């Protein structure tokens, strides 16, 4: 957060409109469902924050090392914990064997981190081991935080029964936004089955006007891995910032390259460099695989920097390699891999990541020199250009595996190396990465928008975010999606794009929805009248014939099974100047024809909502992948853009693995 908000144009120094006009979100209450809080963090300071909003009905509970009346203040206004579901599942919790606080206090650190990303107070001169130095703060620095601790232990286990109670209490207490950085792996459960407690709980929250922001999950970059896909929640993917930590690696031939690390030094002067491989002279086993370095004779690695390769992008090969090289009394490790965006410091030990290209350069240098050497410098913090924005490798991708016609994720936000508060026992601040971190970035922005537009529905706020999102990074350069291979990002990577808070304040038009729209979604998805009736608490019968899921009034058009042609409808509501005229600009997906009718929308004092149809036909003759385009309404000042994604399926419901 020492960079996130400036990067997104929400700089407090320039006093952006959104921050100024909402008084930094001071009237908004954000409910965080997570692992608890460290209330001692300076980011929970309530200095300069006014009285608690009178509508607040929550409170702070006491428990192990947490005094509800002493630890809460005008910033941290709620703190509750829900452990009964976990206890019923595992029996008694032995906190000696499994350290934890049976209270709202945060053993894990995750809850403190995400809550301060959303709404932490200003804390100057913060860094993480010297990296990312600056002022840490939340997106809505004066908004109030209510923590609902439902996730427990070091691994962060959250039982569905505890999560549901947390959401139920948050609804009761009067939060405006619920932020949930929690996921369940695919395959998914139906959105209206209680097995997906987040979805069902969220439905009730959203139907009461509370916006629910959820993580897209960390199972990327494979397709169809996005979770929390219900159309009533705002699902958030993770991007990088324009900040990196280059680390100079100089080879004995004087070629210098920049890897990535969080190495605080000291400089490692020219030192032996090795890639463990069998010289072909004996039976000893050698491996240059980062996860198998421990099979090498210690003498191979002792006193040297070791190069290894891995196909994995998570952090496990780094941990294995560091452990093996340290045990062999090596001096450092260079890990060649595809970018995973999961840098961590290696406890003062040089561990530097490079890609396969640089890794192969180093390998060829080693193989062509009898005494290869390397010099490693401490890492630097590089901010701004030329560091580019990428959708993180780990960020889960669409299409939505339950309803591919519902675009997920909705939006993306920075979620890599985000510096925010954690336990004071852990240094007080830490960098963490995940869609967990991207989620409260959006929650903070949503809080500001809620403060600015208290009468907007959750769907209207979602629409404002999606239709105004950046399709490039804030400096105008393309956003790429990391994976294998790096490619230009598309809506299944980042939804509408990278969240653009200032633009979202004045979207012009919104694609609004309410409970009746979600009922039509359930009808179109084939849920029974009886289930829908009980869910919403009143008799409901779905129309016959069933409505088309393509007509759900989302700020996106996703057609997963186009055969010949289809016509769908959208309705836009004018939230800008009363007398406005918007014209359509269509960028159709390749090989797809899109006709919008009418092509001009006229709004005045009597006409606030206008519908239009979109007729889509395909020229493709085979089952294709998705092609992407955009539909924009513009009044010359505003651009209301939605992503259009179309897949031709001549053979319907056909799995192609030939």
């Amino acid at each position, binding site marked *: 957060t020492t960079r996130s908000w400036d990067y997104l144009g929400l700089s407090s120094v320039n006093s952006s409109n959104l921050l100024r006009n909402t008084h930094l979100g001071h009237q908004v209450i954000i409910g965080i469902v*997570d692992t608890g809080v460290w209330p001692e963090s300076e980011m929970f300071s309530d200095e300069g924050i006014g009285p608690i909003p009178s509508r607040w009905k929550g409170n702070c509970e006491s428990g192990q090392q947490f005094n509800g009346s002493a630890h809460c203040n005008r910033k941290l206004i709620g703190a509750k914990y829900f452990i009964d579901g976990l206890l019923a599942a595992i029996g008694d919790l032995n906190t000696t064997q499994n350290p934890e606080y049976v209270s709202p206090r945060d053993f894990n650190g995750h809850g403190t981190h995400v809550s301060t990303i959303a709404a932490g107070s200003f804390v100057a001169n913060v860094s993480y081991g010297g990296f990312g130095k600056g002022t840490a703060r939340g997106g809505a620095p004066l908004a109030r935080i209510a923590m609902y601790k439902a996730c427990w232990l070091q691994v962060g286990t959250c*039982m569905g029964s505890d999560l549901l109670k947390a959401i*139920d*209490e948050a609804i*009761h207490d009067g939060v405006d936004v619920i932020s949930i950085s929690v*996921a369940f792996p695919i395959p998914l459960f139906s959105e209206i089955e*209680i097995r997906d407690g987040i979805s069902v709980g969220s439905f009730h929250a959203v139907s009461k006007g509370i916006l629910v922001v959820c993580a897209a999950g*960390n199972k990327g970059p494979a397709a169809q891995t996005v979770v929390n896909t219900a159309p009533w929640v705002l699902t958030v993917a993770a991007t990088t910032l324009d900040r990196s930590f280059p680390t100079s690696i100089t080879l004995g031939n004087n070629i210098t390259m920049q890897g990535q690390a969080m190495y605080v030094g000291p400089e490692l002067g020219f030192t032996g460099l090795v890639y463990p491989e069998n010289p072909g002279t004996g039976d000893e086993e050698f491996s240059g695989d980062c996860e198998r370095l421990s099979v090498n004779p210690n003498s191979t690695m002792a006193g040297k920097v070791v190069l290894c390769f891995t196909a994995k992008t998570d952090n496990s090969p780094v941990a294995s390699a560091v452990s093996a090289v340290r045990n062999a009394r090596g001096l450092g490790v260079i890990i060649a891999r595809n970018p995973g965006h999961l840098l961590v410091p290696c406890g003062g030990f040089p561990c530097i990541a490079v890609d396969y290209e640089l890794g192969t350069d180093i390998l060829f240098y080693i193989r062509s020199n009898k005494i290869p050497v390397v010099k490693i410098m401490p890492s630097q913090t590089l901010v701004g250009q030329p560091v580019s924005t990428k959708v993180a490798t780990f960020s889960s991708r669409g299409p939505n595996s339950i309803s591919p016609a519902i675009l997920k994720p909705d939006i993306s936000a920075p979620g890599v190396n985000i510096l925010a508060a954690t336990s004071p026992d852990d240094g007080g601040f830490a960098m963490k990465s*995940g869609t967990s971190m991207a989620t409260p970035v959006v929650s903070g922005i949503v809080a500001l928008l809620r403060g600015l537009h208290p009468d907007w529905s959750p769907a209207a706020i979602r629409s404002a975010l999606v239709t105004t999102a950046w399709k490039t990074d804030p400096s105008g350069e393309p956003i790429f999606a990391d994976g294998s291979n790096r490619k230009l990002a598309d809506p299944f990577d980042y939804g509408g794009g990278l969240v653009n808070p200032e633009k979202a304040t004045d979207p012009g038009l919104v694609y609004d929805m309410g409970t009746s729209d979600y009922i039509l979604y359930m009808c179109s998805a084939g849920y029974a009248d009886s289930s829908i009736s009980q869910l919403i608490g009143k008799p409901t019968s779905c129309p016959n014939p069933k409505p088309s899921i393509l007509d759900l009034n989302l700020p996106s058009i996703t057609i997963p099974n186009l055969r010949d042609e289809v016509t769908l409808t959208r309705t836009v509501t004018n939230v800008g100047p009363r007398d406005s005229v918007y014209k359509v600009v269509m960028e159709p997906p390749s090989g797809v024809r899109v006709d919008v009718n009418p092509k001009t929308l006229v709004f005045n004092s009597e006409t606030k909502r206008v519908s239009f149809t979109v007729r889509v036909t395909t020229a493709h003759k085979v089952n294709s992948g998705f092609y992407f385009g955009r539909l924009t309404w513009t009044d010359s000042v505003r651009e209301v853009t939605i992503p259009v994604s179309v897949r031709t399926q001549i053979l319907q419901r056909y799995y192609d693995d030939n």
Partner: protein
Amino acid sequence: DAKKKVHIVYLGERRHDDPEFVTESHHQMLWSILGSKEDAHDSMVYSYRHGFSGFAAKLTDFQAEQISGLPEVIHVMADRSYELA
């Protein structure tokens, strides 16, 4: 007891504004299946009574199946765990 595990009984939108009344109805429902007020009290883990109606309770699979047959019940599902993202 060893065979009991937490199940979530989901009843949909609340049918009463008073949360105490909603919780009482949950106890009554459990009581009708378990046969005693004490057992119902001991089995109850949570009553969801503000944003929606439902409860979490320690039940055998058979008891869960019995509850799922009640007309006001939408779903009965075994509890499961989520992970941080």
